[in-house]
């Protein structure tokens, strides 16, 4: 089957949303100052784009994101594999990770400020800790769900230790891991924005907070749209491709 083109569907869908939004805002259920129209939001976007602050914000956030996410993915994969293969680690370190992950990013912010000061380090800490869990648990599930025959065959043919991990566990668990990366990325992105919002320290999160501080709802929604759009672009440029590649290799598409 050839990939069908869904761009028209998407366009209709999103245009539909904007139209409904405009209708609601014109109906005047809520006053303009708390429920702006699409037009006002677009105005804010154009303004932010023309003075460059939007692009600078995106770049700053992306930079922090990439470091935080790298840490989260590396740590999450290693931890996930060890948790799946060594029950003692699962029961000790693994349980601690699960516990740590119940804690919302906002709750980390005070400690991050105390421990790292008002630095990028603090923001990256909050980002990484927000994302590592999704990677860990997906890697763990992936490795746990590997068809035992694969592992047996590999062991039988002499794969051991790190060879077993790189040549079998990681590729066999890869469909799950991608799902972990996708989520890790989304949570890291949230984490960056959330941390910037609370640290009030450049980036898209800062712009969001600025809008909020001045009660400029249309600015808030404009930045939320930018956050979403950036998220979607990354998702489709990086992760969808990775996913399609792996799926077709496994004969699942």
């Amino acid at each position: 089957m050839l990939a069908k083109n869904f761009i028209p569907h998407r366009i209709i869908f999103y245009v539909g949303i904007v139209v409904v939004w405009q209708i609601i805002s014109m109906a005047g259920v809520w006053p303009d100052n708390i429920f702006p129209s699409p037009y006002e939001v677009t105005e804010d976007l154009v303004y932010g784009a023309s003075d460059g602050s939007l692009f600078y914000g995106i770049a700053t956030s992306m930079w922090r994101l990439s470091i935080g996410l790298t840490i989260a993915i590396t740590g999450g994969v290693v931890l996930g594999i060890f948790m799946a293969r060594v029950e003692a680690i699962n029961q000790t370190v693994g349980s601690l990770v699960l516990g740590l992950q119940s804690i919302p990013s906002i709750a980390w912010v005070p400690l991050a400020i105390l421990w790292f000061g008002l630095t990028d380090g603090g923001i990256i800490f909050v980002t990484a800790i927000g994302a590592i869990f999704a990677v860990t648990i997906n890697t763990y599930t992936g490795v746990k769900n590997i068809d035992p025959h694969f592992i047996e065959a590999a062991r039988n043919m002499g794969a051991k230790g790190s060879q077993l991990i790189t040549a079998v566990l990681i590729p066999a668990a890869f469909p799950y891991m991608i799902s972990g990366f996708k989520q890790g990325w989304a949570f890291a992105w949230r984490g960056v924005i959330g941390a910037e919002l609370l640290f009030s320290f450049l980036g898209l999160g800062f712009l969001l907070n600025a809008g909020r501080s001045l009660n400029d709802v249309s600015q808030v929604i404009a930045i939320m749209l930018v956050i979403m759009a950036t998220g979607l672009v990354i998702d489709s440029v990086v992760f969808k491709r990775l996913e399609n590649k792996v799926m077709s290799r496994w004969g699942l598409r």
Partner: protein
Amino acid sequence: MTKLEAKNIVKYFNHGSHKLKALGGIDLKVEAGDFVCLVGPSGCGKSTFLRIIAGLEKPDEGEILFDGRPVTETGPERIMVFQEGALFPWLKVQDNVEFGLKMAGIPKEERAKISNRYLDMMQLTKFADSYTYQLSTGMKQRVAIARALVMDPDVLLMDEPFAALDAQTRDLLLVEMQLIWEKTKKTILFVTHNVAEATVLGTKVAVFSNRPSIIKKEVENNSPRPRVTEDESLLKLQQDILAELRPEVKKSKA
């Protein structure tokens, strides 16, 4: 020299609340260079026995001695061809075949040389770059055989490797197997449900009883080689083996 010795191997499995005694005390001695074919009713424990020898499963009683030392782990000197393929879907056919060589650290060119030989033998050269989901069942089975043969192990454990092959391909491979065995004098344990196949290949055919299974009979087979399925001289042997098997299947039906 005794290569492998199974001493009173007993294996239980849990099935919900009840325990199933699969192997009821298998005793078997395999000399270096033996080609032992194992036959027995479906579900009697042939695969389980091979898995225990490979070190993939632990027996509940008894032990396997390999060159006199007890087997506790898997090892590349005992390579298994799994009944259900277990090919790696993330690797191309050629990479599947070379997997064990790569694990052993053999350089790329040498790997390619070895694997090409076996791909050719298995008539898979054209599919070297395909993924496993693109193969038919019989082609997968041939990949699995090639993957084991390239490892050139001391002991080959083959679990119904020819089950999904058409008669002609099978005949070709029966010839190849005998050649390989004669040239390398490997020790081979070969599970099959095809009695003719067992008599063509084996220096010895071991007949499993029904569950809890023991080895009911061992039949020596010294007919001259190369043998083919149609050899009249093997007929008598086949009759003997079938005579041993028939009551077992009846029992399992009861």
